[in-house]
């Protein structure tokens, strides 16, 4: 087994609002190994993006706060680092790709300058070497004619190329961990397939660990080795990708998979989960999925289910699973 790059233990992140405490992430634990892709899948508002931002300690302030847990990388708890120390990690050890490339790139600088910024900041290189490093980052992302492209502004690039430029910034310092937050959602289907294939290739070359945050099971099935399913601030099931699709154990996971229409067969009626996710301000007592669950027991209303390990890599939080 390869080394564990990042270990998150019992992470709690809350937003303090006038209405009260919003527990966006409420006791999440997972780890990622070198060269592995962990998918985090869930609906909007389930806390998947906040989990990613918490790892980088980039929560919106004021309001967002990590209230408990540990994030361990190279034996150090990132939550105990000073702000200055943490900056050295961002971009160098851990980097992030956001959903919309048009808002994550600065429109008034050429893309080459923006890639160069992280190179200059994190690598002790003489100025004349920076350009070579920028070009190699663009090459890694298979951007054609990198010498020309690096001088172009974001508006001159197509959506797919822009997202590659963002990828080049993220990969420019050869990070150990890449957090990709819905990087393909804004892209077209065929461009999305290109982007995913590109990242598989980059991972094989650089052995980077990837946390892939998405709501799309199609993307999960293609790139992830393991998947964590999030619901209302908690991971309800973690399993290897194949098991998630073949033998989902949590009722939410299986309902979610069944509610995605299939291309390879004709569905007469789509399975749908009634209701909607609970407000994080007023969480139900007991299991959070209980109000929408079709197989809920009496105990589900009263107590939160503990996490049960059903095999080495597969754990579920559900009272039905023993």
């Amino acid at each position, binding site marked *: 087994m390869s080394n564990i790059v990042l270990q998150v233990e019992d992470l709690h992140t809350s937003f303090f609002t006038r209405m009260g405490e919003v527990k966006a992430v409420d006791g999440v634990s997972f780890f990622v190994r070198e060269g592995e892709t962990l998918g985090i899948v869930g609906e909007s508002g389930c806390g998947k993006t906040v989990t990613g931002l918490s790892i980088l300690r980039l929560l919106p302030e004021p309001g967002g706060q990590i209230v408990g847990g540990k994030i361990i990388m190279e034996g150090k708890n990132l939550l105990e680092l000073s702000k200055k120390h943490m900056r050295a990690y961002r971009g160098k050890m851990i980097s992030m790709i956001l959903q919309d490339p048009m808002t994550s790139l600065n429109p008034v600088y050429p893309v080459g300058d923006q890639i160069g910024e992280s190179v200059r900041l994190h690598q002790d290189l003489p100025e004349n070497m920076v350009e070579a490093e920028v070009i190699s980052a663009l090459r890694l992302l298979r951007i054609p004619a990198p010498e020309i492209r690096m001088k172009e502004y974001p508006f001159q690039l197509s959506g797919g190329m822009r997202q590659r430029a963002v990828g080049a910034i993220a990969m420019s310092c050869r990070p150990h961990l890449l957090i990709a937050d819905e990087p393909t959602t804004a892209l077209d289907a065929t461009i999305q397939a290109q982007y995913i294939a590109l990242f598989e290739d980059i991972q094989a070359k650089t052995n980077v660990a990837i946390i892939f945050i998405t709501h799309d099971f*199609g993307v999960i099935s293609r790139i992830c080795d393991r998947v964590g399913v999030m619901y209302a601030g908690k991971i309800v099931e973690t399993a290897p990708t194949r098991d998630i699709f073949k033998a989902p154990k949590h009722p939410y996971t299986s309902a979610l998979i069944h509610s995605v229409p299939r291309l390879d067969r004709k569905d007469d009626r789509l399975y749908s989960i009634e209701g909607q996710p609970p407000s994080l301000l007023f969480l139900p007592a007991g299991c959070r999925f209980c109000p929408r669950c079709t197989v809920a027991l009496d105990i589900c209303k009263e107590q939160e289910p503990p996490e049960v390990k059903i095999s080495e890599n597969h754990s579920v939080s559900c009272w039905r699973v023993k």
Partner: protein
Amino acid sequence: MAEVLLEALDLVKHYPVTRGLLQRTIGWVRAIDGVSFNIERGKTLSIVGESGAGKTTIAKQILLMESLTSGKIFFEGKDLYKFSNAELKKNYRPKVQSVQQNPWSSMNPRMRVRDIVGEPLFVNTKLLKKDVYKKVGELLDQVGILTDGMNRYPHEFSGGQRQRIAVARALALHPSLLVLDEPVSALDVSIRAQIMNLLKDLQAQYNLSYIVIAHNLATVRYMSHSVAIMYLGQLVEYGDTEEFFERPLHPYTRALISASQLTLPEDAEAGSKQIILTGEMPSPLNPPPGCRFHTRCSEAGDKCSKEIPEMRTVGKQQVKCHHYS
């Protein structure tokens, strides 16, 4: 054979590109370039394509939000462009309604739900206010919104509920055709299924026809009876949904299906390899000669870059590709 409700014949829409103080036209964006299809009563046609393929332009033409460069649209057998404005307002516009992609921007945040859903009735009928609100209550009930929600504002509803309200508004005038522009893509996975099921139920109940604009094939097989695939302003494949998914003909269609499918580890081991297209869709300002897809096609030959392929009928499908000549 069901009755044809709407027929589009050789639709062309070119937008001028202007430059300078005098707005000199320097070129044309060929948003749609010779598209024909028809919609039967009570059936669903999905128009699928990537961004920039011209899907939304088609929707705009059908809703008569813009005038065509050339082409004809027949509604219930009558040529739309021969209708006077008064006739359109009476006989066409109420019958063709739309639901937009983003339920956060398709409603006026300052209006109450009863006025949003009731607006088509206020504009098009002479009903009294209390009768309109009574009707609104019935409409909301049909789409699964509690009737007391009609006094609230849109921001008090979730995305799925707002989309239900948008559907209620579209149904207010008893239309025969709904143009659904990406009706579920802004919604969460578990909510999408609810809305798709609702749309199917309403279709069965009122014998509605739908035009669904989609970029995601996953919803298409479930929702539609026929599919039209667009690439760079033209249809490349058009036909019956089941045939289409069982035997996709055009190389672009095959790539699109492959890109949208779940790929499990065992599929990969069994050797089913994903088709990954190189490059991106060219600009509609300057489409490539010959077949418009040839720049990205792995099967392109000499002929493809020179001659424009004709739409040919193969079985129950129509396909625009030299490989089927």
